[in-house]
């Protein structure tokens, strides 16, 4: 683009130089026309310069015109106006120039015609004739003198002397006697005449023979005129060998000078007449060249003028378009000091301010973006869930913890209105529906929210605060945490504490009670009658049995409260299952058990005693569940699983008993909860605790048709952190 502008500038300078040269050359031509020699010398190079200028201008006009027409065809902004202006200027200049050219050529031709007026030519011819007639007298006089001198020549002796005497007396420049063969017999020439002796030609001699004389007017190179006369010498002609006398006389210098002047004028006029047509052509050509030069200059000037006038408007249009497209890095060059220039300056000022405002906005946006990124990083790192709503209750932010807690897809709900979310029936919608009602009434609150799941409940501690954003719009902030596990852990700890105390407090008086009952029976057995003894025995047995039961219960409490120290070793779960099931298979239970064991399950790491305890509890529960079932069946299966490159063993114990009721399903693993008439309600709680100690997990569910299923998932290898 810059190179193109430089080239344009150079071209323009070259054109102006050429035009200046043309103008100067035309001026020089005008002034030189007073001096013909100078005119002739300058004319050709000047015409060359003007011709070159003409062709250069012609090419420029053609190129510019073509560009203009192309712009017009492409409907470029301003092209119509430019074309119109160029045509108007062109027409305005063509008409007067054509008129001037027409009249100028007419006047010029008429002027040249006047030079060659017929009267001038006649006058010059008459002057020539007059001069000749004036010289005729001198020619006749020379002839007369020559004839007389020829008569005086009677002897050939001392011919030169005779000729000298005669020449002196006749004032002739030269006297020459010669024969028919043009041999010189005698001669006398004036010493200072500077005359080149010229012999007559044979034709002239023949003419003398026929006419007795021959005269001739001759011009010398110095402009002098000579009269040459040739006459026969009758007195000296003998033996029929004729001799001739040639006399040369000079014309009177004054007359000679006038004759020369007339002759030169006549010749000059003749030359001009001969060159009349070429002169007319050449003047017309020069005039036409000048006119065309002026015309082309006018057209080119009008193209450039209209271009310069419209260019700022085009630039403004382009600038406006660029600004509309968001390009504010634009500056339109100054366009003078007129109204368009002021408009251009105003536009530039406006764009500058817009750019400045955009830069500021961009900086602010960057800061906000940075802050947002920082906030998101912080929110991502938080274990608490955060949900931000705008003043219209559209979700503007959900942090990763929130999506985990509420099991929600973050991207799916960003921008959604909470009212649309409430319509769905999942964990997230429950949470939103329970919080929205509170949001509408209080600006700040903190509450525990319970969310119901199919097989469990989730306890969420939620805080709400309405804040003001940087744009002074309301920002609704919900911060929440899943405290279900925390509460359960707290509950379990409390239960464990209670169990520990109960075990301690119950177990202590049991032994004295049992001993006391046995001592009572022993002391009074011999003293009582049979009936009384039977009563005492039954009473003491009852006491002893209940004490045993209470001890078992206290031991169970102790077991639950105890933090076992696990002894990990390699064990074969399938083998342990076979052994455990064989212990339960007695006469009464034969045929109940069905084992579906996965051969892929390989020896795993675990505490054998605890695993056996788990199996024992699960099998006991299963056997208890099928007591009053017509076709009891217990299916025990194992399966090897792989999750995230870790191997797990899944153990399922499935019965076809009555299954869990809804409450039992939720509270199956809570201590002191049981559906059985007997039992401490600690079996599954202990199982869950032991499974957790092995970094596994347990879930309870009802079978689709009948019965319950307890599934335990255990890692085949201990975690390093656990080990440490």
């Amino acid at each position, binding site marked *: 683009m810059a190179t193109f502008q430089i080239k344009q500038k150079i071209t323009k300078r070259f054109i102006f130089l050429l035009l200046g040269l043309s103008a100067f050359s035309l001026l020089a031509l005008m002034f030189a026309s007073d001096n013909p020699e100078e005119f002739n010398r300058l004319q050709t190079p000047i015409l060359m310069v003007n011709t070159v200028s003409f062709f250069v201008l012609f090419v420029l006009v053609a190129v510019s015109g073509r560009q203009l027409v192309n712009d017009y065809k492409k409907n470029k902004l301003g092209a119509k106006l430019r074309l119109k202006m160029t045509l108007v200027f062109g027409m305005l200049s063509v008409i007067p120039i054509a008129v001037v050219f027409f009249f100028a050529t007419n006047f010029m031709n008429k002027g040249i015609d006047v030079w060659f007026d017929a009267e001038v030519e006649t006058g010059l011819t008459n002057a020539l004739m007059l001069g000749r007639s004036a010289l005729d007298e001198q020619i006749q006089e020379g002839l007369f003198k020559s004839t007389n001198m020829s008569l005086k020549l009677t002897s050939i002796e001392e011919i030169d002397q005779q000729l000298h005497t005669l020449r002196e007396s006749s004032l002739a420049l030269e006297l020459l006697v010669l024969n028919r063969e043009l041999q010189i017999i005698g001669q006398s020439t004036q010493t200072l005449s500077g005359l080149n002796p010229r012999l007559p030609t044979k034709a002239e001699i023949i003419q003398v023979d026929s006419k007795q004389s021959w005269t001739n007017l001759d011009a*010398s*190179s110095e402009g002098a005129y000579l009269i040459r006369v040739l006459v026969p010498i009758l007195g000296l002609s003998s033996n029929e060998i004729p001799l001739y006398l040639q006399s040369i006389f000079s014309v009177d210098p004054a007359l000679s000078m006038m004759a020369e002047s007339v002759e030169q004028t006549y010749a*000059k006029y*003749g*030359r001009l007449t*001969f060159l009349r047509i070429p*002169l007319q052509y*050449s003047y017309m050509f020069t005039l036409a060249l000048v006119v065309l030069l002026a015309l082309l200059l006018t057209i080119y000037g009008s193209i450039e003028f209209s271009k310069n006038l419209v260019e700022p408007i085009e630039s403004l249009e382009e600038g406006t378009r660029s600004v509309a497209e968001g390009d504010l890095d634009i500056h339109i060059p100054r366009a003078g000091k007129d109204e368009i220039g002021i408009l251009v300056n105003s536009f530039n000022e406006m764009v500058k301010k817009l750019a400045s405002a955009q830069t500021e906005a961009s900086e602010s946006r960057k800061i906000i973006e940075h802050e947002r990124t920082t906030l998101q990083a912080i929110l991502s790192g938080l274990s608490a869930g955060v949900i931000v709503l705008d003043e219209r209750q559209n979700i503007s932010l959900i942090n990763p913890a929130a999506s985990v807690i509420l099991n929600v897809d973050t991207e799916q709900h960003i921008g959604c209105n909470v009212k649309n979310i409430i319509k769905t029936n999942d964990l997230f919608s429950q949470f939103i529906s329970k919080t929205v009602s509170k949001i509408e009434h209080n600006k700040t609150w903190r509450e525990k929210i319970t969310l119901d799941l199919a097989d469990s409940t989730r306890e969420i501690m939620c805080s709400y605060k309405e804040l003001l954003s940087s744009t002074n719009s309301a920002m609704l902030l919900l911060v929440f945490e899943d405290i279900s596990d925390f509460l359960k852990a707290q509950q379990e700890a409390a239960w464990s504490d209670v169990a520990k105390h109960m075990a301690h407090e119950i177990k202590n008086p049991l032994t004295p009670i049992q001993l006391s009952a046995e001592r009572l029976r022993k002391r009074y057995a011999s003293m009582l009658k049979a009936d009384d003894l039977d009563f005492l025995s039954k009473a003491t047995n009852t006491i002893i049995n209940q004490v045993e039961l209470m001890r078992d219960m206290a031991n169970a409490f102790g077991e639950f409260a105890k933090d076992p120290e696990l002894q990990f070793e390699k064990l074969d779960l399938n083998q342990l299952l076979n052994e455990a099931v064989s212990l339960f298979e007695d006469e009464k239970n034969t045929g109940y058990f069905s084992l579906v064991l996965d051969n892929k399950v390989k020896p795993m790491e675990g505490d054998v005693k605890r695993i056996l305890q788990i199996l024992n509890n699960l099998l006991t529960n299963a056997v208890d569940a099928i007591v009053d079932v017509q076709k009891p069946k217990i299916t025990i299966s194992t399966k090897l699983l792989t999750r995230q490159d870790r191997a797990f063993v899944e153990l399922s114990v499935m019965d076809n008993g009555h299954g869990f009721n809804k409450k039992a399903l939720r509270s199956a693993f809570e201590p002191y909860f049981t559906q059985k008439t007997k039992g401490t309600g600690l079996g599954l709680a202990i199982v869950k605790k032991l499974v957790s100690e092995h970094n596994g997990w347990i879930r309870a569910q009802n079978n689709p048709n009948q019965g319950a299923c307890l599934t335990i998932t255990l890692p085949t290898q201990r975690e390093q952190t656990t080990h440490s």
Partner: protein
Amino acid sequence: MKNNINKIKGYMVVALVVFLFTTSIVYAQPVKLIKGESFLIEGVYYSDINIEFSFDRAYLQALNSGLVFDIDLDFLIVNIKPWRVDQEIGQLSQNYTIKYNAFTQRYTVLNTNTGRETSYPTIETTLSNLGTINKFPVLDDSLINIDESYQVFLSASIKAQGVPQWIKTLTFWRDSLDFQTEQIQWPLFK
């Protein structure tokens, strides 16, 4: 499109050839070199030259209108060397002017080399005398080697005085009064 352009080009070439051919036929040459020959007399080589002048109406009209014609004869003596570059031994020119004097009604021929002026009553005698040049000294015998070969080249030109170059330039399409003959040559000696 391309065929049309080629056709137009073809027509233009044919037109140019026809134009050049016809112009060479229609316009008779005002000067024509007929022949030249050289001979040795007393250590100097002379040449006899025959030139044919045939002035047409335009020339006669120009001459009688007062225009002066310059007639130049340009000689060139060259040592012809087989298989090598020819060597120029010398060059000389003989210049004449011919004009018509309306007062004396005679044609004057001026030899500008010698300054000798001769007038003739008619154009025919003038051109006849001008066309016969006898014993024109060309070269001194001492300047050449008799064992080598020499050629004399002659060309003639005629030019109208007083017609400015710019008029000739601007009326380029009209008949020009200037003419240059082709070169003729003859051996300096046999």
